């Protein structure tokens, strides 16, 4: 019930993001969702793509530092309070969300959000017990 995300180290200067997107375009990789964390000197780009292996190979070949991380894709009701419901479940259990970002595509009526949480297995179990839909990785990449 996990999805794989790739993270790329970038210096915080002009043209770095453009180069990453050019490399992915050349490798014919489609970006499904992304988030960028930045500091004054560097940033970490997190991506959900349709083909992890191809993306990692292409980026590594061009000298980028890339890593894979397990994240959870969760269906969030597309109405006021939808996100709160999920965060509240995690909060009640004392689970911290490292970061999260939204997916472009809807899953039926619902929005999809990517969560980076630790411990991941416990969080997935907890969400499922509370009738929250956790989307499997294989489905996320092709949604």
């Amino acid at each position: 019930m996990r999805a794989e995300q790739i993270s790329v180290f970038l210096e915080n200067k002009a043209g770095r993001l453009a180069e990453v997107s050019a490399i992915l375009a050349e490798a014919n990789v489609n970006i499904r969702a992304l988030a960028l964390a930045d500091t004054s000197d560097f940033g970490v780009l997190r991506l959900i793509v349709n083909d992890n292996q191809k993306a990692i190979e292409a980026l590594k070949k061009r000298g980028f530092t890339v890593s894979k991380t397990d994240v959870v894709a969760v269906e969030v009701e597309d109405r006021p309070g939808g996100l709160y419901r999920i965060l509240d479940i995690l909060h009640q259990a004392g689970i911290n969300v490292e970061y999260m970002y939204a997916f472009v595509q809807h899953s039926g009526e619902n929005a999809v959000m990517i969560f980076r949480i630790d411990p991941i297995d416990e969080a997935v179990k907890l969400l499922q017990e509370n009738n929250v839909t956790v989307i499997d990785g294989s489905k996320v990449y092709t949604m």
Partner: protein
Amino acid sequence: MIRYRTRDITSLNPEPCICGRTHIRMNRVSGRTDDMLIIRGVNVFPSQIESVLMEMDEVEPYYQLVVDRKDNLDTLTVLVEVGERLFSDEVKHLQKRERKIAKNIKDYLGVSAKVKLVEPKVIARSQGKAVRVIDNRSI
């Protein structure tokens, strides 16, 4: 052996060699006096910073020192490449590692340095003598 003002920095080792020779020996050359930087009055040898970095497993052996002068104060910036072992998807971990490198340099050399994480291959790979120091001070 005669060495006369070569400006090599080394130390003498009076212990007999395991091969049986009892003559005084010279240890490895750790640097040269003309490599030395003076940063806010503290003598800094690039080789000292190198050994601090090499002691940390997650740090790649590529680094560069940039010395500047801002408001009449010397500043030392250490550029460190982020390889797979240093990288994390969480910014707080990267910043923690940055601080740890800076702390180790401060503890070992007594000079505070700013550590800047850079992308791999940003620091030029040179054949032979590497350009480790960029001194932008105009005095």
